């Protein structure tokens, strides 16, 4: 069977996997945003206990391998009676992992909003919540887009780790196919190409987002 024939033959299965990969990535990046922003705020504006908790979270997650975290969620938790499906475990694991990294990107962006912006907001009578919501956050989002784009691309690729806990994403599908037809080399070349296409589309979209939100004149 020629390479092309093979590719056509296994493509449906791989695309099924690719869809799981995309789902995992989107859900995980969302979880990451919803946890990451509050954690970043806690690290910048929080009082001592809040700061300590948020810092602890970031350090623990960044200080341990993603694969270890996934194994704890999938193979570890059942021993205390929590059973997660592979997809659930992958989703939660990738999401929490991404949250820690995103928290750091968001923190950096919050801190690079100039102090004068906050002073000006206070000077017209805004309280801290209003200043954060209307001045700091909108500027933070623009500043964070470049590093956040990297996180999204990493996440898309790191979701392949979910293969190790049997989540049916694209790597799992590739492994399954290769174990049946023994054309490991070709199969994974095709898997690699699919990742490449996905990442290219993603970076194109992210470029468009960055341009759309660029502040004129800056």
């Amino acid at each position: 069977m020629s390479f092309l024939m093979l590719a056509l033959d296994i493509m449906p299965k791989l695309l099924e996997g690719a869809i799981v990969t995309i789902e995992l990535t989107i859900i995980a990046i969302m979880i990451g945003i919803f946890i990451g922003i509050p954690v970043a705020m806690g690290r910048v504006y929080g009082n001592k206990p809040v700061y300590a908790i948020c810092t602890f979270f970031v350090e623990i997650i960044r200080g341990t391998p993603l694969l270890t975290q996934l194994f704890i969620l999938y193979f570890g938790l059942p021993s205390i009676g929590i059973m997660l499906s592979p997809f659930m475990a992958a989703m939660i694991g990738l999401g929490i992992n991404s949250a820690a990294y995103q928290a750091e990107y968001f923190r950096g962006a919050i801190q690079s909003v100039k102090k004068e912006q906050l002073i000006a907001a206070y000077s017209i009578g805004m309280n801290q919540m209003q200043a954060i919501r209307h001045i700091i956050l909108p500027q933070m989002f623009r500043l964070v887009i470049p590093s956040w784009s990297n996180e999204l691309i990493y996440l898309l690729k790191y979701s392949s780790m979910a293969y190790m806990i049997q989540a049916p994403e694209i790597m799992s599908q590739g492994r399954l196919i290769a174990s049946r037809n023994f054309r490991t080399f070709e199969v994974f070349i095709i898997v690699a190409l699919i990742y490449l296409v996905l990442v290219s589309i993603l970076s194109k979209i992210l470029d468009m987002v960055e341009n759309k939100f660029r502040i004129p004149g800056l």
Partner: protein
Amino acid sequence: MPNVILRAENVYKKYGKLEVLKGISFQVKQGETTVIIGPSGTGKSTLLTCINQLTPPDKGHIWLEDTEITNPNTDINIIRSSIGMVFQHFNLFTHLSVLDNVRIGLLVVKKTPMKEATEISMGKLNEVGLGDKIDAYPAELSGGQQQRVSIARALAMNPKLILFDEPTSALDPELIGEVLNVMTKLAEIGMTMVVVSHEMGFARAVANDIIFMEKGVIVEEGKPDKMFNDSENPRTREFLHKITELYGGKTE
């Protein structure tokens, strides 16, 4: 007798061991312009930020009309919304258009309905001569235009008083005039202003009162005429002489 809008009594501020303000007292009446001059590092800007509590003073009392700003029970955000502030580096919100920069205080702080907020903001932008720039972003404007937007932003809140912290010091010389013109116009229509500035021409022409500060104290205070021509303190004379030479204050 016009009302007293702003009254400061014995304002004192220390940064670590450095005493920046050593007991400052002065008052500003409705519709009057007070220009504060003095060498750099004298505490002029600190005094301004003490007034709207961006840097709360360590001791002393400040009143805006009958409200004591320095009273911890006073809602400082309400006070700040009625004291405009214009900064040396404009401090416009970089992510907002000119119109939104002016409008945001009305919308967020005063909860003014959108239509009314837009009308007020347009009015103020026309007043400073920028009615045609409402969709521009700060980074697309010259320094002089940015500073006029920031004046419009202060005006939109309908303040009782506007503080100007060296509003022309960061501007190219050819842009200073347009900002001073706007400020002169404001003085003419009776806005109450406290201005820290080295613009002696402006001080001489517009100020009702000039305060000369040095090393955290008020050395001398008086009408421009007296300060420029007949000051009592030799330090005032020396400083005014030097600064007038440097900045070329207009001679009448």
